[in-house]
């Protein structure tokens, strides 16, 4: 059982490292946008960056749970994805709204 938890912890550490990498890529994308039109068109990426941050926090809670540290907060492992999904839905609705406004222009 402990071997499995160790493996889970190691995989989740890799996931956190990859999340940081994805976050940096997101930052690069946001910084690349120069004019107002581009910033408006790709504004969804700021929301997605926040979603990624929540994903990373969820993974850190998973690591703590796997390595048997601060088990009191392990309930967050299932609650954080709910907020993640809510923010993802909000981001996509915003994107649909933006696509509609671009089409009307």
């Amino acid at each position: 059982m402990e071997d499995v938890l160790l493996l889970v912890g190691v995989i989740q550490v890799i996931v956190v490292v990859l999340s940081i990498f994805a976050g940096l890529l997101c930052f690069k994308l946001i910084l690349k946008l120069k004019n107002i039109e581009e910033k408006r068109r790709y504004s969804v990426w700021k929301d997605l960056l926040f979603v990624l941050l929540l994903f990373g926090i969820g993974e850190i809670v998973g690591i703590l749970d796997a390595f048997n540290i601060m088990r009191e907060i392990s309930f967050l492992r299932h609650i954080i994805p709910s907020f993640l999904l809510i923010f993802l839905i909000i981001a996509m609705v915003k994107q649909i709204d933006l696509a509609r406004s671009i089409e009307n222009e």
Partner: protein
Amino acid sequence: MSEFIDSLSLIAPIYNVALTLLAYFVLATLIVYRKRKTKSYVQPWKYLFAALTIFLIEEVITIMKFFNIISDQTIPRTFNASFELIIIILFIMMVISQLIEVERLRSKKISNPDKKIKKKKNKQFSYKLSRPR
């Protein structure tokens, strides 16, 4: 308060599935709308669609474990971690594809004004040639 949080965390995978299905619906609307009406680039959203599918599978497995339909021996917790690894890889692919698209659009915009100037010059040249003396 702690009882409430405990019960919330127990029931969370069930409403996560409901939220994922809602997200599916919104994402499908977004992809179809962008493809048909604005004809814009939808590749990043397809990656997100794949990531959501994997998340849905993960949550369904969690629910099945919660209702004792399958045990931890059948599908160990490493599977869940592997699913999360695939999700983050798909997200990275999503960001990279969007970065490439932004670069492509920018290079297109830079190259287009030259073409317009060349076309104008050509028009002027042809006008001069065709002008009766």
